[in-house]
């Protein structure tokens, strides 16, 4: 089965928007292409779901890629990539802690920055700065991407 993703050029890097089911196969392919250095892993809340953005680089020639994928609120699960890049171990823990993405297969998925007994994921947009639930906050509808050959709508950095 071919991988479902869209690529585009942004500044000096190649950006891959990928279907969550093909998130790990794509990254395995990139690892095979020699992207050996883990730059960054960001978790973010887009008000219709959660997004994970992975930045990688290749030390040999400095090529850079960005991979992102969206998961819905009710099933915020992604396969872990710590076995490909062990450097993402704490980054995934942080994304779980602050945003709430659960990584399957992570060796030690605990909260890292906040206390273990907390229940909220404070960087989600449903909370205000102080960690209180915003009154009347409603999630937005999921922007359906019917065909991965077309550009997914409204994924340019998230909507206000």
């Amino acid at each position, binding site marked *: 089965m071919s991988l479902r993703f869209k690529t585009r050029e942004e500044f000096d890097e190649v950006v891959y928007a990928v279907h969550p089911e093909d998130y790990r196969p794509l990254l395995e392919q990139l690892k095979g292409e020699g992207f050996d250095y883990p730059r*960054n892993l960001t978790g973010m809340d887009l008000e219709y779901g959660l997004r994970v953005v992975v*930045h990688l680089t290749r030390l040999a020639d400095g090529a850079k890629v960005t991979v992102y994928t969206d998961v819905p609120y009710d099933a915020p699960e992604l396969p872990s990539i710590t076995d490909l890049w062990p450097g993402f171990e704490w*980054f995934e823990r942080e994304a779980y802690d602050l945003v709430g993405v659960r990584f399957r297969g992570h060796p030690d998925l605990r909260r890292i*920055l906040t206390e*273990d007994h907390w229940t909220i994921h404070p960087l989600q947009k449903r909370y205000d700065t102080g960690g209180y639930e915003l009154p009347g906050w409603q999630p937005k509808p999921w922007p359906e991407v019917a065909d991965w050959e077309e550009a997914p709508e409204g994924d340019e950095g998230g909507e206000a």
Partner: protein
Amino acid sequence: MRGPTQILPTDRADEMLINMGPQHPATHGVLKVVIGLEGERVTRAVPHIGFLHRNHEKIEEARTYPQIITYTDRMDYVSGLQNELPFILAVEDLLGVEVPDRAKYLRVIFFELYRLASHLVWLGTGMLDFGAITPFLYTFRDRERILEIVEKTAGARMLPNYFTFGGVRRDVHPDFFKDVADFLDFFEKRLPDYYALVLDSPVFQARAVGVGVLPKERAIARGASGPVLRASGVAYDVRKAEPYDAYPEIEFEVPVREEGDVYARFWVRFKEMEESIKIIRQAIEKTPKVGPYKGKVPARMKVKGSRYRAVEISRGHLGAHVVGDGTDRPYRIKHRSPSFANLQLIPDLLVGARFADAIAILSSLDPVFGEVDR
């Protein structure tokens, strides 16, 4: 469960678990490491962080772009000014702002001055962990001179909030270049003292050579950066890999050492100080004497798009991932901090070492908890 994390008692009769930190003089802040000891040998090391988690990323979503620069200063507070740059570069990319030449060189000078200041703090506190008090006092004395120079121009000592979109916030003090040149001459005379007290000291060499060896592959896979990575034989420096500001026009070397032990990490930072001196000297020469210090920036900053930029601060690869939604406040900012990635090496490096070595290794990683916990 309420209350601090309970550490389960060990199941081995010959192992003793100790909680090192958050209040421990050798943790450089508020790191907590649960260390299992078998005699003096470390059998396990579990780091716990987050004791300085200050919700940087959440609170920055509620601030306008110029306000956020103040917050970025407070991440790696030892090298305060350097933290502003990745965020500023990312926003400049998204806005398409041009930075004038003079501002580029001024940024480089300040950037490297803070690298010197930060390495001096590291050297002093690192030698405190080795049991020597005197280098600490010497390095802080030299650091004060740097801060005085910065204060004359920027108005504050440690966290000056001086860089801004399109350049720097104000022009430098008339004495600035002379002061910096004087300081460099003074500091070059001081460096042999530090070599004698630290790198060439036989006691230090006995403690540092062959201790805490980090293999090259492991360093890359763990995402280590900065002197920790370069001491393991990888010549990855963001200043060379993705140059920013005036670095492409400046000649400098990236010190690399193959051993990957504590001594190599100390050596790399020493050589970086020497390279910084060279860079500042070149930058002073090449700075245009007249010219604008700030480019044209739209008055109402409406940033749209997503951008990740990185710079090489004293501790390594500091990145900022800025996502704007077209308003004057960011939708999401993620700071990728070097010490955060470097600290993942604690279990790799500490297990099997002796307890005194564990302290030495921690000081050679040089974490700053403002950026680890953010």
